[in-house]
């Protein structure tokens, strides 16, 4: 697989405080990469740097050989944050159309219906966010991220605020959406603090150490796809869990 994002000698300072020094890694085209690490190690910051929302201090990041800003402008990146960040005064379909509206793109009126269908919320186009559950709100947020048909989906602990049952369900849904042809996402970068979630979803897991963060290890998860809930009891899955717990230092 070829690289879609290349990161060279990436450093980030907040004032004099060093967040990372000289990170080197790449994201491969078509992969599901999770970023995991102890809280406060700068997982979210790293994602936002990759997505061009936060400036880095030094080093080089390129997406398809281009600077991040170009990828952002070319609508190659879709974001989903921990909070759904839906505008409460807009119904689902109008929330989904927001990115297109801002960029002045004429969209077909069917686009939001199509996106809602992909995330399994058909028929909810006229609901306000306040009328939807947390899981449904996050689905609308995913649909909104898909509206651009982005190449790379960047997710920052998107299911962190959900209860475990909903979260497990959303994990399966995310894998389904990722492979959905109409969604056209090639690569997913997924920040989480949950080891089981990372193992279940990812092709590779980038493990950050506590600050100033270094790359502790990049773990290849060679569980077969499509992933099934039963795999959580497989020997291989449990070995990965064990291994990651050891590196992260969680008991």
């Amino acid at each position, binding site marked *: 697989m070829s690289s879609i994002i290349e990161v060279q000698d990436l450093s980030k300072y907040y004032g004099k405080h060093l967040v990372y020094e000289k990170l080197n890694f790449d994201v491969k085209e078509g992969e599901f990469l999770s970023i995991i690490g102890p809280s406060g190690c700068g997982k979210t910051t790293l994602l936002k740097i990759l997505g*061009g929302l936060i400036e880095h201090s030094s080093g080089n990041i390129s997406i398809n050989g281009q600077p991040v800003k170009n990828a952002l402008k070319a609508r190659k990146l879709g974001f989903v944050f921990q909070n759904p960040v839906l505008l409460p005064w807009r119904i689902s379909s109008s929330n989904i159309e927001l990115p297109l509206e*801002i*960029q002045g793109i004429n969209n077909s009126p069917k686009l939001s219906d199509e996106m809602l269908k992909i995330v399994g919320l058909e028929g909810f186009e006229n609901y*306000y966010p306040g009328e939807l559950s947390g899981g449904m709100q996050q689905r609308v947020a995913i649909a909104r991220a898909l509206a651009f048909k982005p190449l790379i989906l960047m997710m920052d602990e998107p299911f962190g605020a959900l209860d475990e049952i909903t979260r497990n369900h959303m994990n399966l849904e995310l894998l389904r959406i990722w492979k959905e042809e109409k969604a056209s996402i090639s690569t997913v970068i997924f920040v989480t603090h949950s080891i089981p979630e990372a193992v279940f979803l990812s092709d590779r897991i980038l493990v950050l150490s506590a600050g100033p963060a270094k790359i502790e290890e990049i773990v290849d998860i060679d569980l077969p796809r499509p992933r099934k809930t039963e795999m959580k009891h497989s020997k291989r899955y449990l070995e990965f869990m064990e291994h990651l717990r050891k590196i992260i230092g969680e008991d």
Partner: protein
Amino acid sequence: MVLQLFKKIKKGSGTIVIPILFSVVIFTVWELLVFLLEIPEYLLPPPSTIFNELGTNFSILLGHMAMTMLAAVSGYLLANGIGFCAGVIFAHSKTIEKGIYPYAIALKTTPVIAMAPLLVLWFGTDLESKIATAALICFFPIIVNSVKGLTSVDRDSLDLFKSYSASKWQIFIKLRLRTSLPYVFSALKISTGLSVVGAVVGEFVGANVGIGYLILVSSYHLETATMFAAIMMSALGGVTFFTIVSLIEKKVIFWQRALETG
């Protein structure tokens, strides 16, 4: 009978029924006390006399109230319009905010009654000076709240708009303006009552019409029942104004209710 009434109160019509029951009790006690303690009418007229006054001179009272409310609402609209625009400018420029804010606070701490004679001197004894006093008192809440509201946008929403390469203008129109509305409306509600205060204060200082004028004149003649009636009319005006703005708020910020019930 009592039980049925109680059930009705519990059903939620209590917001109207309970206050009415309370006022009936208070007025009855008041009437009795005035009668039993033989309090002279010029000190404390019994409710029956006040209501009689309200009934017989209603059109006159209403005329005065209309003038007061005209001044109050005009000053209110003027102050909130200018105040919100000032808030927008403050929210965008820290320098301007730092330069003007101390004076806004100085203005806030200066009692309107201290400024009123000056305003009457400048704007005359007609409507204009009352609009000015009403506007002056409404100015502060809207400035503070619109600045607070316009800058209260959360980090995530800004990141979202940034990820769409949104312009400052788009962020303002599509995000900041709406986010500020709950703050703006809380200022708009507070200043309904304040605007009536401002107008009445203006009328105290120099006027020939209005609730303030009526209260002042009837106090000279010890027409205490008229004073009470005038006070009640001004309260009625303020409450009506507040209710109208609250209803508009519910229409405009419809999503807050959806959030609470959802």
